[in-house]
């Protein structure tokens, strides 16, 4: 796939353009469509309607079509594909769907300039850092970093954004923060203790959003549920000078694996 893109993109030296009518582009678009759009119950094989609308036999304006695929249609089942598929592939799908239309795309709209809306180039991570990323978000582990930390749109932002809080830290410092979560506490993420009117004690992370209820991530179990209390349901709230981050990571990950995670976080900031 990548090699083909290189060929197609290279056709016009310097400016990255794509001809939506080029058979190779339509072919690639068809393959991407079959995998991402026709599947299951959405637009059906070759756009012959399933749950989503029938795509054959319509008139298309490529830029608008690209926008619909890229950004989705809010309020409907049509998702945004940005961040899931590279823009080049979305353009190829655009070319393919346009080829199913009732009329050819206007001559003036067949060549698109990719350089204006290029996908972010994939960051180059070392093999170890890539493995660390996998482990950080590994869904097969019920305890994992990604349960409370989000990076690159994965994981869950219960705890701080590590790309920011670890900025400038050495690999050794990152390792220390994993081994001893209390060594330094990210601003706004000190552990909160909440005692309910019923006498239940909850420790975790209190969310700061302005709301008429008190919300706290309950670290009594992982993944932490976000629990909400009306003011009259709360007896006492106090901030503790320690981190809510659990320890014991050497029981979850091997030494090698922790080293890979450190390499990932080191690369991430």
């Amino acid at each position, binding site marked *: 796939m990548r090699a083909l893109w290189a060929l197609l993109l290279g056709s016009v030296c310097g400016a990255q353009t794509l001809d939506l009518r080029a058979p190779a582009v339509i072919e690639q678009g068809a393959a991407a469509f079959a995998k991402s759009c026709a599947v299951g119950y959405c637009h059906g094989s070759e756009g012959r309607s*399933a749950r989503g609308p029938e795509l054959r036999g319509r008139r298309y304006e490529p830029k608008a079509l690209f926008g619909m695929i890229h950004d989705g249609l809010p309020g409907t*089942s049509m998702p945004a594909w940005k961040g899931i598929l590279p823009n080049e592939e979305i353009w190829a799908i655009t070319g393919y769907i346009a080829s199913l239309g009732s009329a050819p795309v206007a001559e003036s709209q067949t060549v698109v300039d990719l350089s204006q809306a290029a996908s972010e180039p994939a960051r180059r991570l070392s093999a170890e850092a890539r493995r660390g990323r996998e482990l950080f978000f590994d869904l*097969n582990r019920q305890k994992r970093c990604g349960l409370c930390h989000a990076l690159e749109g*994965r994981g*869950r932002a219960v705890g701080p954004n590590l790309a920011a809080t670890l900025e400038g830290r050495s690999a050794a410092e990152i390792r220390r923060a994993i081994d001893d979560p209390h060594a330094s506490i990210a601003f706004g993420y000190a552990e909160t203790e909440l005692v309910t009117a019923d006498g239940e004690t909850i420790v975790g992370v209190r969310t700061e959003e302005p709301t008429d209820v008190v919300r706290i991530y309950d670290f009594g179990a992982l993944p932490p549920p976000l*629990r*909400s209390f009306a003011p009259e349901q709360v007896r006492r709230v106090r901030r503790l000078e320690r981190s809510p981050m659990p320890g014991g990571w050497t029981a979850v990950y091997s030494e090698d694996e922790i080293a890979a995670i450190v390499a990932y976080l080191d690369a991430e900031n």
Partner: protein
Amino acid sequence: MGAEGSQYTVGRMLRTLLLLLLIGAMAAPGQEVNAERLARAEAEPHNWLTYYGTYKAWRYSELSQIHAGNVGELTAAWAFESGFPDGGLQATPLVVDGVMVISTASNHIFALDAATGRRLWRYDYAAVQESPATYGNWNRGVAIAYGLVYMGTLDNHLVAVDLETGREVWNVEIENSKQCGCDITGAPLVVKDMVVTGVTGGDSAHRGYLNAFDAKTGRHRWRFWTIPGPGEPGHESWKGESWKYGGGSTWITGTYDPELDLLYWGVGNPAADFYGGGREGDNLYTESIIALDPDDGKLAWHYQEIPYDVWDYDSAYEIVLLDTEIGGKPRKILVNPNKSGYVWVLDRTNGEFLGAWNLVENSNWVERIGENGELIGRNEPPLGEPTFLCPAIGGGRSWNHGAYSPKTGWFYSTGLEWCQTVTVKQEEPQPGMAFFGGEFQMAHPRGGKAFSHLSAYDPVTGKRHWQYKHEYPLLASQLATAGGLLFAGDATGRFFALDAETGKELWEFRTGSGHRGSAITYSVNGRQYVATPSGWGSALAGLTTQLWPEAADFPTGSSLFVFALPEAGR
């Protein structure tokens, strides 16, 4: 394949019975729904407390004010419009002591006065835009207990909101939905002091599971992986790394036997759906009924209906619990209609295979099922060659549920006579992305036109007592009542009542949009109501246009229609 020995003990059964007797004696309507009220839901026919009505999953009510003799007088009492028609309305409403709660597509919940339809509160889940693409935006229902309403979400969270106010009480993310390519569309099930939820993801490169949470706090209790990990029994039924991406979703609500203290759940297809290369083996526990100890989520027994599925059938549908006699001996059985059209009958104490029978005539994926449950004459589509297969991916039946009436002793179910051409394509898994391994094109059966039917069957033998034919797929659940009635709805928006004994149509009402949800019945202040969601939509509703082009004009919707007999004196 085959059942493992039962691990449930007599001691555990006695312990549970004692608990039920002690606390059950105190349970009375008016207090909040708890484990005891749920276990005895049939004692409260004025309510519809849990997804299938009761844990037996009969979708049957003892209410008989509306009966075969007066159903012709049934009239609209009130209607409700959610305002969210995209995706249709697939839910089962619940009713607790005069309050109805219904969820809609895109995770909105409404609480209504069940007698008048007046809105009490509305809850809008915030994050619907984050849902993964594959499984649609619909929601099939909520669970209620301990003063809370539970709903799974399109970004794979489970939320609990206050039954009185609609205020969110807890919200837990099970897994990042973009990472797993999964979400929750099925209704949760409350068991004891826990709420259990399944997940979609059977058509994604994802490893399925079932999770239980503390009903009051949202704290995680246990997870059962539907695909065993390294070192666990059954892991050897997966080749290489395929276990990490093998699907095994739990998308339709399971059920619970309080007496045996076993939680039953059906597991969906393995991924990739059509391409089995790379996962050669039985692929446990996909296409299986699993029985778990609800206290710790440990497997008591399993029975695999379809080892190594390459057709995208599912064992995920309802599990109907019956106590009956087979060969002169009393048996505790379960009846599970599979998406393949076959209905499996198992001993629910230990998973022993008792038989399988077919809902549909158009069936060529296997020649037959042997007397020990073995699949004979498997018709596996080869790589790259378009293969004609029946039933279609939509199933010999869809997920919408059948009904069982103890009055007739019959199981009522729809059957879909449609086929498809499948072309298998080799595909490598990409974590969290769609993982189908092929394409399909809907097709009419050889020598005829696709159609559907609603029939009455002996639940053990499959002997058919009557059949009601329909030109379009019947995709709504059935409701059976002690009034000798069977309610159902069709794609054109007709909601109708049949005589449960004969299948004769007795009454109809046009609601304006097709039926894809599950009707219920309940009563308030002595007046019986029948409520049906109306709102064509869903994956199969879309697929129908490949065979019935006119279905493109069937409007979507998201309404609820409620019927009752005219009040005396008015």
